[in-house]
């Protein structure tokens, strides 16, 4: 049994309006930034999973995403195994 460190990024699905990202973007000119656009605010979760192999670790985390970490109506989740 190994222990895997996993990073989950939850993002709003394309087409879902993101007032938070838009607000951040609107603040940029006042801060002196130019050429930055299409900011989308999301969430990141780091966790450790006990699993026999990476495939199983991913399977468990995908289920966690589907049931809790992301709302599939409005969010997508991307899973990366860090270690």
């Amino acid at each position, binding site marked *: 049994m190994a222990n895997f460190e996993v990073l989950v990024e939850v993002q709003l699905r394309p087409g879902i309006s993101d*007032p938070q990202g838009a607000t951040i973007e609107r603040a940029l000119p006042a801060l002196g930034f130019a050429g930055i656009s299409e900011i989308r605010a999301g969430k990141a979760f780091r966790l450790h999973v006990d699993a026999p192999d990476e495939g199983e670790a991913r399977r468990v985390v995908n289920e966690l995403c589907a049931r809790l970490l992301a709302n599939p*109506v409005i969010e997508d989740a991307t899973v990366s195994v860090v270690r």
Partner: protein
Amino acid sequence: MVVFPGTNCEHDVVEAIEGLGGEAELVWHAATSLGSLDAVVLPGGFAHGDYLRPGAIARFSPVMGAVSQFAQGGGPVVGICNGFQVLTEAHLLPGALQKNKGLIFLCQMTELEVVSDRSALTAGVEVGRRLRVPINHFEGNYTASAETLRALEAEGRVVLRYVGNPNGSVHDIAAVCNEGGNVVGLMPHPERATSELLGSPDGLVLLRALLGTAASSSLAPRAGASA
């Protein structure tokens, strides 16, 4: 009234229901059975601090199994504000509630239009009637896939619409119901519109309809639905 850690509107709902002659009981979220109830209300508040997403953790509370069964049996279930969010996260209602369009917390009176009288919350209420009921939320912006929206509109499952959409909800939707009409979610707070002193008594129209539905537990058959 189901009470989650962080729910804060349950007493207002109790008072409104009792004022109408109904009997109200508080059920803690850890309870695994509802006892013998005629209707269930999921009141407003910040269940689990709205952590992760509003309602995302509450949907896994032990009591939700019983609520789901009660709903499947045709029992009236009404989710108010945070309660609506819990119902969508629990998939007892379709769609999701997002951050308000202007990214502002809205605490204001709204005008609603009754779109369907075929729901546990609007049975016997005149379609087209306008009601003034306050909202109090940051994440009340209703959204759903194009397919879901089509189905909701075609099946008459949009229950209330905003007149003067305050939060960007798609199709101005303020309340929806399930196929059976017995599960209803709404963002406005009817329990806060129970007298002129509070600004409007129109919330009583909805709560009275709910009590009526609970008492009779019989809804008009939906067009196209089998008996």
